[in-house]
């Protein structure tokens, strides 16, 4: 025998073994590989589920309706649950918890996160509420919430949090290999709009089903949209999960005992459930709940199951300013979950369906297969309404505390969480510093001119930024101080009976903000966007800026403080019968005591008509203005009746709306003539219908009347009118007298007439230019120029300066 390398012997033995086992080995090896690969594939997803009864003792208050007045529960109709799914794709693990509560209040979430310790990061705990209005309360400490959620019972908060933790541990401990499928389909009309019968409704229902390797259901997660507010009557004070409770029962029956069904409510802010076959009461509750389960189950039958890749995105976002600062946090946790091609956006409140639908559109445009909105997740900031619904005097609008721009804020935030970008990412251009400089005031001190251009929001933002300090000061003196000192409290109300050591200002401001929403009615979206920008630029909540705009109305309803006096003015139009031409001469003095800064603002919006406005720093309404199509509008206050808050937008905003959108005289006159809710004003309107110039005064007294020129002279007030102040009568009599005896032929002479100063005398309001006069504006309607003169320190009018407005072309 040759000496062999010792190593060769084992090798040969190996070769012998391989040869001997070659056929079987290959088989075994292939089987081993198959098993290994299968194991690797199914080990990628693990899931577990659990449900724990969280029903507290009878006698604990319920949460959901203010008219329960925080009283105790009296019975249990059906139990309340904490239902948890644990999911782990090998890289991302999280808990998704659904609670039979009206909302996840901050105290509960905070306690759950404090108590939880485990392998899942705390920021991966998603708590949602089904929004049943028959869940328990007793867990909110904030005083303002307790009239809805009942007295604060720390023991109930603690017990609920502990049970949620228990469900999480149980779900985690029960985790196993799983496969997941999802689907969306039609909810067959089970969601309806609760505010407007023909309004938009959610038509989608979404299902995620998780099965284990044996095909047994671990959990079924259903996203359906509709307020669970169907329990009432004798059971008003009973604990119940509402229709989700019947969904659970039905789904457990359909999917098997191992299944833990979860219910995630959608963008349900203005949605409720239908009444199948006209059912009502518990019949309706049960019918809807079971039908939701049946639809979801049917959808799940056609799903394909497989692995899942999760992407959980989270941001802690700074919220827009709000008047309800005692009620709302400054920042909020927002979450977005992607399950393969399904995107789920978690709203910390109650979004209206419009917002959910719009966000879905954006998500689908980015290539997601499906999108769910899940409301009442991880916090409760009340309602989110779309901008268009903000001015409505209804519950959802009142309960929206972040302004009409909240809609866009939500889109922006959720889109930033989406991992899929659009093909071309557009960057929104806000006016940069350079652009802001061009918004600076032009002209000398006697003719302050501010040019604003860009989108409506940008114009507002620039204006708000430029006048930031003045607006802030005015807000303090005209809004905050009167509220803080109780001037705006209704006389004899409980507000006035409260002890002085209580600070009621935050509550009062919130209430006032809610109450002023309806005054936005009639304003276009672009005008509202402009004011959103202005609020942002001025550093105020939207509702705060809006309160400032009509602060004087609040004050006049109770108080004659000169701080909130209204403009008495002189307005005049001289038509062809007087001038002998086709043109119209227009002039007005604005008489208004105050320390505001007068400004001429040139508005060059991207949408709407360019215009020139003469007004004040803080005031976004219109006092005097001329637009590109030569519609001229100005107003004068004439007290006929006691001042009351209007039902819709105050007059100066109606005029601002017209200036931005209206081209013809008759069209604007028609709108003004229909504004029956306006009182105590006269509006001078002049403009063109085709080639013909015309002018009129719309008088808002006890009723609306329209007055035309008499022998070519049209004054803001007819001196023969009954019930007008004597000074107003004298002023206009003097004006008419002068016009008759010393006819004016051009705007210069009109301007001279309007600004002749009687400083030898007392300067009282009976004079055309008086101690309250702020500025004078004269123009010839056919010419693209306005002339303005401003009050000087000595009280007299300064020289007229002419502004040629190139955007407003000459009218041939």
């Amino acid at each position: 025998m040759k000496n062999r390398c010792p190593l060769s012997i084992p090798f040969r033995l190996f070769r012998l073994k391989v040869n001997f086992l070659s056929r079987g080995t290959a088989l075994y090896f292939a089987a081993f590989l198959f098993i290994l690969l299968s194991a690797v594939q199914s080990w990628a997803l693990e899931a577990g589920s659990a449900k724990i009864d969280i029903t507290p003792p009878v006698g604990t208050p319920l949460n959901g309706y203010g008219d329960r007045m925080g009283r105790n529960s009296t019975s249990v109709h059906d139990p309340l649950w904490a239902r948890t799914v644990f999911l782990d794709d090998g890289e991302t693990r999280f808990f998704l918890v659904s609670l039979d509560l009206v909302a996840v209040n901050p105290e509960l979430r905070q306690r759950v996160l404090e108590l939880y310790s485990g392998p899942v990061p705390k920021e991966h705990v998603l708590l949602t509420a089904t929004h049943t209005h028959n869940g328990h309360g007793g867990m909110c400490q904030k005083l303002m919430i307790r009239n809805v959620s009942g007295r604060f019972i720390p023991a109930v908060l603690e017990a609920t949090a502990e049970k949620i933790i228990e469900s999480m541990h149980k779900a985690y401990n029960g985790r196993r290999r799983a496969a997941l499928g999802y689907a969306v389909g039609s909810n067959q009309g089970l969601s309806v709009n609760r505010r407007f019968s023909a309004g938009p409704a959610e038509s989608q229902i979404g299902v995620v089903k998780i099965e284990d390797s044996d095909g047994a259901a671990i959990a079924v997660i259903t996203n359906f949209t509709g307020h669970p507010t169907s329990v009432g009557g004798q059971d008003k004070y009973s604990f119940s999960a509402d229709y989700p409770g019947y969904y659970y029962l039905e789904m457990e029956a359909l999917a098997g005992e191992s299944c833990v069904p979860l219910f995630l409510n959608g963008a349900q802010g203005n949605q409720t459930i239908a009444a199948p076959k006209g059912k009502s009461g518990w019949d309706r509750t049960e019918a809807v709940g079971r039908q939701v389960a049946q639809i979801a189950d049917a959808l799940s039958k056609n799903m394909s199951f497989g692995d899942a890749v999760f992407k959980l995105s989270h941001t802690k976002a700074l919220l827009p300013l709000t008047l309800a600062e005692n009620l709302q946090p400054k920042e909020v946790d927002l979450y977005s979950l992607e399950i393969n091609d399904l995107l789920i956006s978690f709203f910390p409140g109650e979004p209206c369906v419009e917002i959910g639908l719009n966000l879905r559109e954006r998500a689908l445009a980015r290539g997601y297969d499906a999108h769910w909105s899940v409301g009442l997740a991880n916090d409760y900031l009340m309602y989110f309404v779309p901008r268009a619904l903000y001015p409505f005097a209804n519950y959802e609008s009142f309960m929206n505390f972040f302004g009409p721009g909240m809609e866009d804020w939500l889109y922006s935030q959720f889109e930033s969480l989406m991992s899929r970008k659009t093909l071309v990412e557009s960057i929104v251009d806000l006016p940069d510093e350079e652009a802001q400089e061009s918004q600076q005031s032009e002209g000398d001190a006697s003719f302050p001119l501010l040019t604003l251009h860009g989108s409506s929001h940008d114009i507002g933002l620039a204006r708000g930024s430029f006048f930031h300090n003045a607006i802030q000061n005015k807000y303090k003196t005209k809004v905050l101080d009167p509220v803080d000192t109780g001037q705006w409290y209704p006389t004899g109300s409980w507000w006035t009976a409260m002890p002085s050591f209580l600070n009621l200002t935050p509550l009062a401001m919130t209430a006032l903000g809610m109450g002023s929403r309806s005054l936005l009615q009639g304003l276009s979206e672009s005008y509202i966007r402009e004011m959103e920008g202005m609020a942002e630029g001025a550093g105020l909540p939207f509702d705060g800026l809006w309160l400032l705009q009509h602060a004087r109305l609040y004050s006049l309803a109770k108080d004659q403080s000169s701080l909130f006096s209204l403009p008495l003015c002189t307005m005049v139009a001289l038509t062809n019968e007087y001038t002998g031409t086709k043109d119209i001469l227009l002039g007005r003095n604005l008489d208004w005591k105050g320390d505001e800064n007068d400004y001429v603002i040139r508005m060059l919006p991207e949408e709407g008509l360019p215009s020139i406005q003469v007004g004040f720093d803080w005031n976004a309404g219109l006092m005097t203005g001329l637009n590109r199509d030569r519609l001229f509008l100005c107003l004068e206050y004439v007290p006929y009746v006691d001042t009351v808050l209007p039902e819709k937008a105050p007059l100066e905003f109606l005029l601002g709306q017209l200036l931005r959108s209206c081209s013809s005289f008759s069209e604007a006159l028609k709108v003004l003539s229909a504004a029956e809710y306006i009182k105590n004003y006269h509006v001078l309107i002049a403009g063109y219908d085709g080639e013909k110039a015309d002018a009129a005064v719309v008088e808002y007294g006890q009723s609306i009347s329209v007055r035309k020129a008499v022998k070519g002279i049209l004054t803001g007030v007819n001196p023969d009118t009954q019930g007008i102040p004597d000074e107003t009568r004298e002023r206009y009599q003097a004006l008419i007298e002068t016009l008759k005896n010393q006819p004016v032929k051009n705007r210069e002479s009109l301007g001279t007439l309007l600004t002749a100063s009687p400083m030898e005398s007392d300067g009282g309001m009976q004079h055309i230019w008086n101690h309250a006069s702020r500025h004078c504006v004269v123009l010839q309607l056919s010419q693209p120029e306005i002339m303005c003169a401003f009050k000087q320190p000595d009280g007299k009018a300064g020289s007229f300066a002419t502004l040629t407005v190139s955007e407003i072309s000459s009218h041939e």
Partner: protein
Amino acid sequence: MSNSVQLTSWGGTASKPKIQRSSSGKPFLFIIFVLIVLASVWFFIPARHAAEMESFIPASHSIEVYVYDPATKRNELLKSPILHTIPEDTAAAAYLHLLTRKLPVPDWLLNNVSSGLFHISVEDSNRPDSLLVITRMTRIGLLSEKFFSLSGNVSRERAGGLDLKKVINAEIFYSVRNKYLLVSSSRDALIQALTLPPEEAIEKNKFEAAQQKAKEADLFCRLDGKAFLQSPALFKDLSFSVRLNQSMPRLSITGSFSDEILARYGTLLPQNTKDDSLDMPLDGIASLSVNLGAPLPQWYAKLAETNEGWEKVSSWITLSESLPENASATELLQYLIASFFHSSGEKIRLAWFGFDPLEVVPAPLLAGTAQGKTDALHAAFDLVPPPPFSDDMIVLNPSVNSELLLATVPFIGGENLTPSLAIYPQGALFATSETLIRKLMQSEALTAQLGQKANLYFHLRPAQAWEAAVPALNEFAASGLLRGHTESSFAEAATKISKQISTLQEFTVLGIVSDKAFHLEAKVTIGLSDQADNNAIQIAQRGQR
């Protein structure tokens, strides 16, 4: 009147031979002896006119304070833990600071200047310049004054023989008459006292009575109607004595109301208090037990006559003959309240038991009883129907438990915001909390009597009151509704107040009030601790800086 000394001449007369001089120095010694005698006479022999203290005190002075041994009393005050409880920035603290500050004379001198009574008086509170202090001096005090007057700090003024002295730096005038030291910041006041005709001086028996009271206490103070400058004056006269017991300072007050007050409110005061007794006060943080001297409806009728504002209350206590059918919640409530009112006798109790800070709004826990016949209330309980059920309106109808004789009115929130009314053997009981009323119904104090002759009892437990208020106020602070405070700034402020108030355990008043006079005994129970002593030392040291 001037000090005068009778001199006896030691010189010889024509009929008497002169005493022979001794050639051994005896005349020199004799002269020294004479000088010593003269000096002794000058120092020690009292004035010819032995006027008493009261002869210097004007009867027109409406405020008088009598204190024996003021130096000792001052030391006791320094040790008293009550000093610690008074907030620094108050007028009371300022006055105490004056008393406890370092004095311009050494303690041993102060201890030895005055023997017996120290009397302070003033015309009225608007005339501080009329302040007059009189004390009887010891011999050492007299001697000290002599030396003091010879120091450069004192200027003298004959003032028509009155021998006035002025402490130059302190702008204080004083005079020594016999053994009495009279001090005032006003020269005129001092002169007035020194020249006071007897008929304008305070009455001797009045003075002696006050002296006796001052001996029995640590301080006695008397005020007459003129002292009270407000119009109309509240009292005709008022006196109080103070005992500075370390753990339980006491105040005994006696007085009578002014004629103006009696004319207006006299009918509200008990006329005959001979057999007055009180129900045992409820054991609340604050508690009041009164015997009105007349059943509550009668008393209220008199109150309504004196004050127009009570008309609004009257509609709620007018008892109608029967309940209307389908009576509303308001009508039922009014009927129960009126029944309770008309069942009430003379003895009324009210108490406050703290707050439930976690209720829908922080709820004060209040209760009260009215002793009397309860037939009307029993009848009312029988008439009130069970509350209806409504699924769309909140129901405020009262609910009666006939077995327990308890009526509850569902309000907002839970049991501690559920006004309740109950019947017990001696009368009726009401509370703002159902939980509280059920507890009180089991309490023995409900039917007990105080066992002392009195018609007014009140107590307040300040430390406990503050500890009860803090959680309630904190709820407002936590919700941003407490003016000027966040939750953390309020916690800081509350802790500071707690420390200051923690030793004030209870303030109690017991007494008899009638239209003729009133007598009240008040005491303050202070929680003693080492800290209290240390605090007292710190306060004293602070005063001496």
